[in-house]
């Protein structure tokens, strides 16, 4: 049953692309898609590539700059994708190729952005949500480290200043005690 649904989805995907994208643009885009460079790439999935056994082999990502980048998947490609009901699926392609295709198709249909980590043209990780908004998350990360360091430095500074004040006060008091003892004849 699942295979039938997957096949239907793939067929629908294949037919919906020409409907969703103007013919000349589509022809131009697919023709001008390039292999993704190493590193992280953000965008939405526009084309899903399958083999004759309806097994996912790769996909094309449309970046925010409008560039189309192509990448393939292999057994060790990791997925961390969430569907509309909030169910997050984390697995590797080799563990469940059919589910991988379903999830990728779902992402494509919802135009949900994904972040793909690419190495040598192969997607090593495909994730959505938090990584899709790297800048916002980096802001939070920066805040966490800033708050921690500011907290430590402020406390150490306060303690250090108090230590210095007390050291001075102790020396003064010791001088007074010693002077008083001299005066009362307790110390020669």
């Amino acid at each position, binding site marked *: 049953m699942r295979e039938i649904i997957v096949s239907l989805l793939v067929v629908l995907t294949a037919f919906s692309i020409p409907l969703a994208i103007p013919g000349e643009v589509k022809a131009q885009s697919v023709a001008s898609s390039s292999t993704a460079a190493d590193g992280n790439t953000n965008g939405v999935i526009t084309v899903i590539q399958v083999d004759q056994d309806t097994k996912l082999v790769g996909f094309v990502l449309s970046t925010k700059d409008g560039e189309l980048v192509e990448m393939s998947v292999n057994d060790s490609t990791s997925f961390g994708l969430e569907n509309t009901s909030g169910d997050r699926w984390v697995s590797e392609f080799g563990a469940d190729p059919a589910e991988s295709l379903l999830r990728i198709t779902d992402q494509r249909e919802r135009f949900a952005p994904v*972040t793909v980590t690419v190495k040598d043209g192969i997607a090593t990780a495909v994730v959505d949500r938090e990584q899709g908004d790297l800048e916002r998350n980096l802001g939070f990360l920066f805040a966490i480290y800033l708050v921690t360091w500011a907290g430590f430095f402020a406390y150490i500074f306060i303690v250090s200043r108090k230590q210095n004040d007390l050291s001075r006060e102790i020396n003064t008091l010791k001088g007074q005690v010693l002077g008083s003892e001299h005066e009362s004849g307790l110390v020669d």
Partner: protein
Amino acid sequence: MTALPKIRLIWLGVTAALMTLTLWMIFLWVPTEINQGNIQRSLYFHVPVAWVAMVAIVLIAVASVAYLKTRDEKWDRLAVAGAETGVIFAALMLITGMLWAKPVWGVWWTGEAKLTTTLILFFIYVAYLMFRAYFPPGEQRRRLAAIIGVIGAIDTPIIYYGAQLWERAHPSAVVGPLSESDSSLDGPIGLTLMVATLTFSVLFVYIASERYRLRKQEDEVTSLLRAISLQPPRTPSSSMDNAEPISSVPAEGA
């Protein structure tokens, strides 16, 4: 600025070296986690800080028990140092936790058990310090503070087991007797977390020892002022008249 004794200087150097190593591992060595992305790097600060906050309350409990048994003031000083350092770490644990929760859970705070019991831990620290600040100085204060310190430590196992006992957003324990064997915290992520935890533990020892030293100085000032007040009255021509004035007699520190 007083010269740092050699051992404190060495300890500070070790702390700085370990912190440099930890930061290098966090930002340059450990790979980005697949589900949360870069924000997951908060783990390497949030978890060690939380660990130290719990170690601090255990330290207070141990020092308090030792004080109740021996009545030696050094244990009371140690408990105070642990409490004041612990409240800093507990506050940072809550703040870093909220800053991590917002992008991952979508909220700053939830009412789940682990968060609530952690907030209670923070309030225990605050209550302990407030008690010491407002209760009249003396043996009774030290004794009652020690009892509060021992009772406060009961919260620690509840926090640890909190994620297992009730429904939660926090993940299950990954370290200790309740850790799951298929935990994802292995490899570089696990190693980085261990190094970060060691680093923050070393930092805690440094800060707590500085606070202990400060507390010792406060006690010394108190005893010196007591000694001066017990001395016989001086003649007007006394050399004491030329001595530097003393600001005030401090109450026994918080």
